[in-house]
């Protein structure tokens, strides 16, 4: 491996080699995470419901997702006749592309940071908006009323929950005094300060609820509620179009949980194990919580969903922010 890297550096130069290596690593992370999450989700749902879940392929059915991917790759990509062709084809791409940028912003350990952006947190949420456009493009271009309704719901839900999501992280930003995710992790690991969830428990709760809603996960999955809207915005997408939407969804789950782990749970900080291990453990703990939400809470009705965001979460997070500012000023 080091020999290969040295050979690459000789050919392309240090900078481009680093870029290519980072790109490849993140692409691998996206694929592996999605494959693991699909299997994990099916297993957890099976345990919750007293079933076994996938068991046939590999130990505990671990190879099931790999075979699913091969099946999806072999399927015919159908484009319905009356869709808006260009937008229809572009939609999954637009939904997926920001995922790579977002993954490069997470602090995997002190040394392993792909992009050390000074306003990293804002960058995460800004690029989330790009993928929302992809979802709505898919919903509109499908020329299907269920898909369109799903898209419209996705927009209103994402706009509503982006506010508490941002406001809850701002309380942490205020305490840490920086928008840089790596620096926020450093503040928590520096001598005896402790992780931010101890100081900001309310912000953590608001963050997890809003993050679940931002990623369109149950109990907030009304953009794709199967009992009302067939499959919502991706109704008309077969084969890889569908797969790319799901790849994007699982990557966003990883990203919001990664930001949550970095902001509230000390990122790569922990005893004995190396940094990236701790980071992944924390991320998958938060992901496990999100999966459990899906199988324990019933889906919210649309007006309940909006009430929760505008009447409860936003005022709460604003109050939390003000109290935080006051305490910082006084202490």
């Amino acid at each position, binding site marked *: 491996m080091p020999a290969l890297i040295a050979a690459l550096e000789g050919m*392309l130069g*240090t900078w481009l080699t680093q870029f290519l290596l980072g790109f490849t690593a993140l692409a691998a992370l996206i694929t592996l995470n999605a494959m693991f999450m699909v299997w994990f989700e099916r297993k957890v749902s099976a345990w919750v419901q007293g079933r076994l879940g996938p068991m046939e392929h590999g130990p505990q059915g671990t190879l099931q997702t790999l075979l699913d991917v091969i099946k999806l790759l072999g399927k015919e990509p159908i484009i319905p006749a009356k869709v*808006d062709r260009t*937008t229809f084809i572009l939609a999954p791409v637009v939904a997926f592309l920001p995922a790579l940028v977002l993954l490069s912003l997470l602090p995997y350990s002190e040394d392993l940071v792909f992009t050390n952006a000074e*306003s990293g947190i804002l960058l995460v949420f*800004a*690029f989330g*908006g790009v993928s929302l456009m992809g979802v*709505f493009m898919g919903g509109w271009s499908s020329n299907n009323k269920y898909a369109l309704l799903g898209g419209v719901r996705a927009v209103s839900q994402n*706009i509503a929950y982006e506010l508490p999501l941002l406001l809850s992280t701002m309380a942490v930003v205020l305490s840490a005094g920086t928008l840089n995710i790596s620096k926020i992790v450093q503040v928590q690991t520096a001598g005896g300060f402790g992780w931010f969830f101890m100081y900001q428990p309310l912000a953590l709760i608001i963050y997890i609820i809003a993050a679940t809603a931002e990623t369109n996960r149950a109990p907030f999955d009304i953009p794709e509620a199967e009992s009302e809207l067939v499959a919502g915005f991706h109704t008309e997408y077969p084969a890889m179009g569908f797969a790319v939407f799901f790849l994007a969804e699982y990557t966003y789950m990883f990203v919001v949980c990664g930001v949550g782990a970095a902001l509230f749970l000390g990122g790569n900080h922990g005893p004995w194990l190396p940094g990236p291990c701790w980071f992944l453990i924390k991320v998958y703990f938060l992901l496990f919580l999100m999966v459990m939400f899906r199988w324990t809470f019933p889906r919210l009705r649309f007006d309940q969903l909006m009430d929760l965001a505008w009447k409860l979460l936003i005022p709460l997070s604003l109050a939390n922010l003000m109290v935080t500012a006051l305490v910082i000023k006084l202490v």
Partner: protein
Amino acid sequence: MPELSPETLLNAALGLLIVMTLAGAVLAVTLRKVFHNLLGFGLSVIGGAGVTLILGSEFVALMQLLIFLGGIAIAMVFAVMMSTPNEQAEEPRSAGAVIPAILLGLGFTALICWAMLDGNFPQSSPYVAEAWSVKNIGLLLLTDYELPFEAISILLLAAIIGSVLIARRTREPEPSEEADRG
């Protein structure tokens, strides 16, 4: 093969982003469907944010993405509600609307160009994030530019109160609806 320096790549990216911004702007005015126009505008905004990012103003770029993309998504929903259905062919634009629009656009561009060439802007070094960081912008807003900052806050507050008032007035329940709930 000569080593590709980060500066060369950044310059190439800058050129690409400028082309993207202009292409998005052209799409935004030439396409016939409102939804496509908004997508073109979105492309233009993303390109513009990229240019701002490369020129070293990370915060402004991010705010542009956060605010404009959310705004475009909402505008799309309204566009869907108000425009003609997908399957219906759009009528061609009338010359009576196109020509004044072109003249107005050109006039505005000329005005902006004149103001920019005439004005004296402080030069910030490119590719440096420090000059226009969140901290500096925040300090400037609360010291040198406090009056405009407060004025904008009041404008926003008035807009919020206005929208709440409008929403209230139209949401009064009908007597029949009241009976349904009872």
